[in-house]
């Protein structure tokens, strides 16, 4: 029974020292849209891409991700279709729609505005 104790670093992400965090609230949609703007992708692929590009800082919970897909699809930003993956497995691939692309632009601009505002605030004191 004792050998069941697991190295915590193995459990979390890819065992890097950097601690992982949940995606910043409200940005998950934007991150999904951004990821899909490059190419259509299946759910796990999107999760992995977000983790890799953020160098493991953001860890996406599958529950949140799948719920977000539902939401974005209902909003008309995504379309989905079942395809074969490169490993020959059937998976649901998500595609960005035209309204989705527009939404991504809006959210990106909004995000940039907020980041610069926060940055200014943080600098103001120092």
């Amino acid at each position, binding site marked *: 029974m004792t050998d069941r104790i697991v190295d915590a670093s*193995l459990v979390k992400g890819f065992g890097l020292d950097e601690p992982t965090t949940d995606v910043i609230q409200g940005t998950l949609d934007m991150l999904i849209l951004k990821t899909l703007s490059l190419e259509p992708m299946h759910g796990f692929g999107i999760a992995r891409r977000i983790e890799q590009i953020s160098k493991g800082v953001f860890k996406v919970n599958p*529950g949140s991700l799948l719920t977000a897909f539902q939401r974005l699809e*209902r909003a008309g930003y995504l379309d989905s279709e079942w395809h074969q993956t490169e490993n020959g497995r059937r998976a649901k691939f998500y595609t960005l729609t035209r309204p989705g692309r527009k939404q991504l632009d809006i959210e990106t601009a909004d995000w940039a505005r907020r980041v610069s505002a926060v940055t200014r605030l943080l600098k103001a004191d120092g």
Partner: protein
Amino acid sequence: MSLWRQLSRGLRVLARRSESDADLDDEVRHFYEETEKSYAARGISPAEARRLARIEIGDATVIRERVRDYGWENLVGTIWADLRLATRMLRKTPVFTAVVVLVISLGSGAVTTVFSAMNSLLLRPVPGVADHGQLAALQPIRSDGVLLQQGSYREYAYLRERSRTLAEIAAWGKVALTIAGKGEGATIWGNLVSGNYFDVLGAHPSLGRFFLADEDRTPLAAPVIVVSYAFWRSHLAGDPSVVGRSVLVNGNPFTLIGVAGKDFHGTYTGIRADAWVPLMMQPLLRPRANLDASSWLWMFGRMNDGITTAAAQKELGALVSSRAEAEGEPRGPAGFRSMAVFPFSGLPGGEGVVIFRLIAVLLGTATLVLIIAGVNVGAMLAARSATRGRELAVRAALGAGRTRLLRQLLTEILLLFTLGAAGGFAFAVLATAALEQLPVPANIPLQLELSPDARVMTFCLGTSLLAGLVFGLWPALRVVRTDITARMRDGAQTGGSGRNLIGRTLIIGQLALSLTLLVAAGLFVRALQRGQQMDPGFTMSRVLTTTFEAESWGYDESRSRAFYGSLRDRVAAMPHVAAVSYTSRLPLTGGSSTEDIEFDGKTINVQRSSVDTSYFAALQIPLLQGRAFLVSDNAHSQRVAIVNQSLARRLGLEGAVLGRTITFLGKPTTIVGIVRDTKYATLGESTPPFAYLPLSQVWQPTQTLVVRSNDDSEWLGPAIQQVVIALDPALPRPKMSSMSEATSIVLLPQRAAAIVTGALGLIGLVLATMGLYGTMAYSVQRRTREIGIRVALGAQRATVLSMVVREGMLLTGMAIVVGVFLAGIASQLIEGFLFNVSPLDAATYVGMSFAFLFVAFVASYLPARRAALSDPLLALRAE
């Protein structure tokens, strides 16, 4: 686009639930597989990799549930699932469910019944009327401030011509009509109406047409008649070809031009009209009414756009006043100087207020019953959720969220209350049908339409669900809020002293409220008794009466006189008949006729009736001074009057007014007698000045026969009917009623209130007793162990018995204190209906309290006895 997507995708999911679930599972599995692979790629054993992936991703079911929670369609699904589960839970405890539904039905039924009456009497617009919001009822106000219902034709014509605030004004008066078309004739109430009557109402005929303006312009020019749909069906065989044909109306040929809309019965709630004829036919159908001067017309009008009743009232008041000035009308107290304008309804302004007050009291009372029922159900639900703690704890442990659990409980509660509402609605349907059957005097075509409609149904469901939320929510919240793990540990020992306190407070509240209701019912019963025993000033027993509408038979004055005379003589000749007379208005039937008289430069407004000789003998009203009317008082002799004591005093001269002359109906009239004061219109009235005139001098075509006999012979009624038929076989058979039946309407409010509050009070008592019994039984059950130990240690059964009973009696005692206090406050509201029975009538309070104490004793004795008889060994083993 997105709304469409929401809808279509949601529907797709709903339609193919398992398929979309499988898709979702597949996506989640994809995550597992890929995560496992990435661990395996780092050289971890497959079994360990699977375990790590499972830890990292989390439980598949949880993820699936979370994703499925998104989207409206899942709400539909969960509500449906909740409902199914709720139904299953309720079916598992059929007795509990039945009792709860029954209790809610009683409470909801009580409120719904009263609301149904309120809806049809006060809220529902007059059936068959269009845009009733623009209609206004016009009622003259006398100089002395008395609000009347009717005005004269002269006023009507004046206002109709000049008003700018009202586009049109219509008028109508009552008339008794005997209509003979196909088969036997029937006497019904009809309306003499202005030509624009139906147009102002915006009513539509179901057959034929209504009146043309021309048909109400010249007196007697257009003998046309419109009948009600119901009359057409019942008396004209529903034959469409009768339209355009001739029917006999009071013996005169009239052309039937139309049939009114299906539910149209005139504009006076409770008194149905079945035929309409133009006002200009009045000289033929109601020849005695003075069309011009006497006040017999109800008036209503359609307001122009943007006009308020206040603006109309101002304008009409000024018009009425200027007319009176211009025509030089005397400024007596009975003169009109202003006009009241009310929003149009089936109830005239003054009456609406009285009925509104009565119904408000009843509605408040019924609400108390609903509250008692709700509190009871709340207590039952709380007791049950205590026993269900374990089940809920297991479900929480299996991953049901708190909101989900709460929603589940709420679904159950609302389902219970919806079933209760259905029961309540059924209750109301039956109860209103029973109320419509309350006895009313035969000569008034009273027809109350109390049955519930869609609005009542909505109200019923709404109040039930609201009660469900108010009284069902707190037990549910309590269960969900309590620490679930604590509950798992000891499911049996739930609830501490806190719940007990709340439970007890609720029981006291219920008992107190039902005592309040019973006291109110008791007071109404006392008032009814007092009313029945109240001395009206004349003798009711052994008096038979019936009312004749001679005009409606097409009789003129001389023919009527001959008829009334020979009927009187023949009845007087019958054995055991002590006295026979007629009166133009039977006392205690609710109405009155008033007139201004002049004496010594004073104007006094008096009530009057015309009576035949021997009227005072027939009703045994003592003659104090002077003489009764004689046969020699006739149309050619000096006008005479007999006054009551109050009028004698009002005339002055210390009441010594015998032989003095007053001006009555414009003629010098000698006072020949003084009789004792009696009750006239109602039992609660303060005695008005009253004058009797001989029928021979002031003729009235409508007369009520009053026959006093020496014994309670039952053959007298049929014998009188036979005489009437023998005198004229064409006449409808008169309805005979005893004096107390004929006057029963004056006690109708008290009788109705006693029945309703009594019924409500009994329901309340049953509910509260059930609550007390339940609480005591529950408390005994929870103390089984304690009682067992006591008995095992040698406590006497009597000690145990008294211990439990004492607890119940303590609660009851506190409830009585609170209930008596509440009743003391509430009874002030009904003081006006009580005929001087004190709202703090000691006998009622003490009597009801003792009755209450007894019932409460039984309710706590039964569980106590069970506790005392229980086997201590069994009790101890039960844990």
